[in-house]
Structure formats: C-alpha cells, structure tokens
C-alpha cells in the first residue's frame, strides 16, 4: 500500500506524541528503579547518576521477590495452559458444529468478559470457603484455586479468538484428511493446528498478559503462599512513605516479560489480533 509522504509524516508525529505521553511516566519510573535510595525523591529530580541494582537486590532477595515471581509464573502459565487445553477444542466445536444453544452460549461467554472482577471474586471466595468446610477441599491460597478462578476470564477470550481462526478455515481441510485415513482428532492435530498455530500463540500471549497483570482476584483469593508480583507492589507503599525505587524495581520486573514477549512475537501477535488480514 502506498501512502503519500505528508500523510506518513503526520502519522508518525501523532504516533510519537501518543507514545511519549504514555511512555514518559513509565520511563521516568523505570529510571528511578536504578537510582540509589538517597536520590529516589530529590527536587529537582536527578537524571545523571551511577545506576545501581540495589533496589532489585532488595525486592528480589530481602523481600522475597523471587518467590512472588515464581508464583506469578506458575499461576499465569498454568492458567493459560488450562485455558488453551479446554478452550481450543471448545472453540473448534463452536466453529464447526451447530448445536442447540450454541449461539446463546457464545454470547454468554462474551458477557463473562464484561463482568467486573469483584462480581466473580467474592462468590469464588465464598465457594472456596464452603468447599473447605464441607468437603475439606482447600482452594484458597493455592495455585489451582487461582488457576481455576482465572478461567472465568481466560476461557471466553480463548474460545472467541480461536473460534475465529477455525471458522476461517474451510471445513474441507480436515474433511479431506478424514477421508485420507485420519480421525477427526488426527486431522485436527495434523492439518488444522499447524495452520492456526500463530493464532494459538497470539491467544496464549494475550491471556498470559491478562493473568500476569491480574491484581484484584489474586488479592481476594491468594494468600501468603501464593502472592503474585502485582499484589506485592502495593507493599512498597507504606503508611509513612512510598519506597519509590523499590516500587519501580518491582514494576519493571512485572513489565519485563510482557515487553519481551510482545517484541519477540510481535509479528505473530499482529497477525493473531488482526486475524491475518494485515499480512
């Protein structure tokens, strides 16, 4: 596509302005993460200093950040894996078969995405409490507890995104494989999955980012054993002061994987989010 030069320049100006507005605070904060404690807050702010990793060391080791990082990873990867295992086959079924109520079910799924987390979090808490008392099944402050709860938000996203990818493929593709000697599952694994693979990756990343950033449900349902990184960020804002350097160090640790993932898989992400039309 050819775009006139003037328009292209205009587009860049707008994009750079918007990017600066969004990124400036993030950048300023990220710099603070590398400042020694004495100049966390100085007026005017100090920009020239010898960068240090002491803030990271503090939040990572002294305040057990590595533990929360591990929790976050386990919960995020676990939720995404479960959501994909359940959601991808469901999406395929929605794309290929019409059954009683399939349309209503899809709409109900999307409505789940619009519910504020608190509406989900408190009932889950009550449910977990009852399970504990009645059946002695403990889910509060456990990895499975959070992973199950996150499905409320991840599953609809997986199903909606993946259904789009499947629906775009001609049914004749797997039907051909079925005539050629494979079961439907075999056809799905051998010919359909390789084609929708970029879509699965994009879906996984989006879901990972959601689970990774999730704060509210974790606050309600996680505890000492399963605290996630975003939950601990708040602990650096104490009554008397804010530990800016430490706070931003945690923030950077939270942001890092999201940024890295997005950069590495940028192309697949764009393809996934635009359903391949921007190829």
């Amino acid at each position: 596509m050819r775009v006139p030069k003037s328009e292209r320049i205009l587009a860049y100006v707008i994009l750079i302005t918007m990017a600066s507005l969004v990124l400036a605070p993030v950048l300023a904060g990220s710099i603070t993460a590398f400042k020694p404690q004495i100049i966390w807050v100085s007026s005017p702010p100090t920009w020239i200093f010898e960068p240090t990793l002491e803030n990271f060391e503090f939040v990572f080791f002294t305040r057990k950040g590595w533990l929360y990082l591990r929790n976050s990873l386990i919960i995020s990867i676990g939720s995404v894996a479960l959501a994909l295992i359940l959601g991808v086959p469901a999406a395929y079924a929605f794309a290929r078969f019409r059954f009683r109520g399939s349309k209503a079910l899809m709409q109900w799924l999307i409505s789940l995405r619009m519910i504020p987390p608190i509406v989900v979090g408190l009932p889950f808490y009550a449910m977990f409490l009852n399970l504990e008392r009645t059946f002695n099944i403990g889910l509060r402050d456990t990895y499975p507890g959070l992973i199950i709860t996150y499905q409320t938000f991840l599953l609809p996203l997986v199903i909606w995104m993946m259904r789009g990818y499947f629906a775009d493929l001609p049914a004749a593709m797997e039907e051909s494989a079925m005539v050629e000697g494979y079961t439907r599952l075999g056809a799905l694994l051998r010919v359909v999955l390789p084609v929708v693979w970029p879509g699965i990756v994009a879906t996984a990343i989006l879901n990972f980012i959601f689970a990774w950033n999730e704060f509210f449900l974790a606050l309600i349902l996680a505890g000492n054993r399963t605290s996630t990184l975003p939950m601990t960020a708040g602990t650096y804002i104490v009554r008397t002061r804010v530990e800016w350097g430490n706070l931003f160090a945690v923030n950077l640790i939270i942001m890092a994987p999201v940024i890295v993932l997005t950069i590495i898989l940028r192309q697949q992400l764009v393809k996934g989010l635009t359903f391949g039309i921007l190829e």
Partner: protein
Amino acid sequence: MKVVLKDLLKRFTNSDRAAVNTINLVIEAGELAVLLGPSGCGKTTTLRMIAGLEEPDSGRITINKRDITDLAPKDRRVAMVFQNFSMYPTMNVYDNIAFPLHAIKLGRKEIDETVREVARLVNIDHLLQRSVRQVSGGEAQRVALARSMVRRPEVFLMDEPLSNLDAKLRVQLRTEIKRLHQETSATFIFVTHDQEEAMTLGDKIIVMKDGDIQQAGTPHRVFFAPENAFVANFVGTPSMNLLPGAVQKTASGAYRLQLPGFDLALPARFNDGLNNLRGDQVIWGIRPEAIRLAAETGENCVSGVVELVEALGSRDLIFARVEDQLFRVIVDALDSTAVGAPCHLRFDGAQMHLFDADSERSLLAEQTTAGTG
C-alpha cells in the same frame, strides 16, 4: 468397485425439504459416473454421504456388497477431491501427496516411491518441493488429484474439482482425469453442474434436481432420449426448444400436434404413449440442431423471421421468431442468414420429443419404464 445407494435420504435440520430425497443408484465397477444438476440439487450432499462426511437419515450405501453406511470416512477406502480445497497450506507439494500414506504404516522408501510415481502421473513431479504459495490453481488441483490417488482407492469422489479453473485448464485437466480413470480402472463419481463436462467425461450421467434423480444413463441416452422435460431442457447447449401444445387424433389414427400458430404431424412412435395420455396437453421439444432452414415451406415446416444471430465458430445460433415463440436453431455458419430475413424452419420428425404436460414425463413408452439404464 460397484457402488450402490439404496433409498438414501438426507434432510438438513433447518430445512423442510430433503436435500437428497430417497434416491436409488447403481454405479458399476470401473464406471465414471457424473452427477449433474443445477445448484442446490443435492450433488455434493450425495457425494459427502458416500464419503462418510454426512450422515444419511435413512438408506444404505454399499461398496462391492460391503455396507459402509456406518463406517467412519477413514475406513471407507474412498478418495475425495473437494471443490474449494486443494492443498494443506503448511505442507509442501511432496508432503501433501505423502500425507495419506502416513496414516498407514509404510516405509520411508515406499512412501517416496509412491509419491514420485503419482506425481509423475499428474505431471507435477518437478514441483515436489514447492510450497502452497508457489503453485498455481491448476497445479494445486493436480496436487489434490495426486493426493487422492496415492493410496490407490477403488472409488474416487470428485466434487467439481475443475470449477475454479479457467476454461482452457479445465478442458486440459478434464482429459487427464479421463485418462486417469482409464489407467486406474477405478470407479469414479464426478460432480459437476457443467453439462458439457458431464457429456465428455461420463460413462453414465445422473441428472439430479431438488434431491431427486431425474434420469441416469449414458450421455448418449440422456441427450437423445431424455426421460422428462427437465432433463431435455437441462442437457445440451443451447438448450432444447420446448413448447406447450395439444394433440389431436386424426381419422387415420395418427396424431397431429397443435402449437401456437401452426400444427405438425407427429411420428408414429409416439402413438402408444399418446393413446395412454390423459387429456390432450403435451410439451413438444426439439433440439436446435434438429431444425433446418428450408428453402420453401412444406410439411412440418413453419415460417418465421430471424431476430438474432450469435456466432459459435463454425456454426451460428439463430433466434427465429414464430408468433410469440423464439426458436433456437443451430446452422452451419456458411448457411447462416441475416437478421430480419424471413426463414422457414423444418423440424426433423425423428428428433422430436414429446412429454406429458402434467407429469412432464416422456411419452415414448420404452423410456418411461427405464429406471437406471
């Protein structure tokens, strides 16, 4: 492999009309049968039921006396070429052709030999390492053909495999399919809505409409002895001239046909059919090729005016108006006339068709009894 469809019925849930309406069909071993009919008549549905991709509501399907009605597609030992799908996009040509072989346990060497042999057969052996993006539509269709052949099935199902190709390529691939059929001596069931394709390819043509089989027979019979007005109209381009008329028995026992503006003597071969006709209303048919331009008027001749002339190459298609009726007439281009000229149309009695106006069935007795011939 002989394929037999017995009372096959398929009704889709959201439709009140049967997509395939209790059809019976016998396709002999080694035959190339063509399912022909207008869009939506149930050709694809029939084929998909044979392949096992669609479950019939009732009826049985047997291949060589083996009842396959309840088998999974993979266990039916049939191959299928689809209309809108040719290549698995993530595999190159070689892997596409090898794909069905991976479903059965075969050695690497055997797979390689088979792939190359089949690729040679459809002239794509120089493309084996190409990806989907690097092959043309015609080549992709050949890949689909090769993939269908690679397991040496005894029944081939082809759903309009050529309809997405340009005219020249279509004719070329059509010839190759015919050749493949002769070389493999397998049973082919080929779907098309192109009646010329059906004529040139088929040992047997099965004409369908609204889920029913209208006629099944050799291309010759379907063309020259249509069993009903629909087949008469659908098969042949330009299509047959069909006119409503009324018959009268003369004192001699022969029949005359009264058409708008003129009347004709009917050949004696219709007598049996006409003697059994209820009422006097019929549909009279004559192919454009069976009408001659005569120098002067006479028996079975009518005068009209040339309204339009279309060049078809060595022949011309003339539209001649007689009263309210436009006749399609095919003439040798050298014998053609000018637009606006008066003309005399002579109808060849031996090539006339007559159908009951109610049932639209042919009034030739020998044809009305023919089931699947």
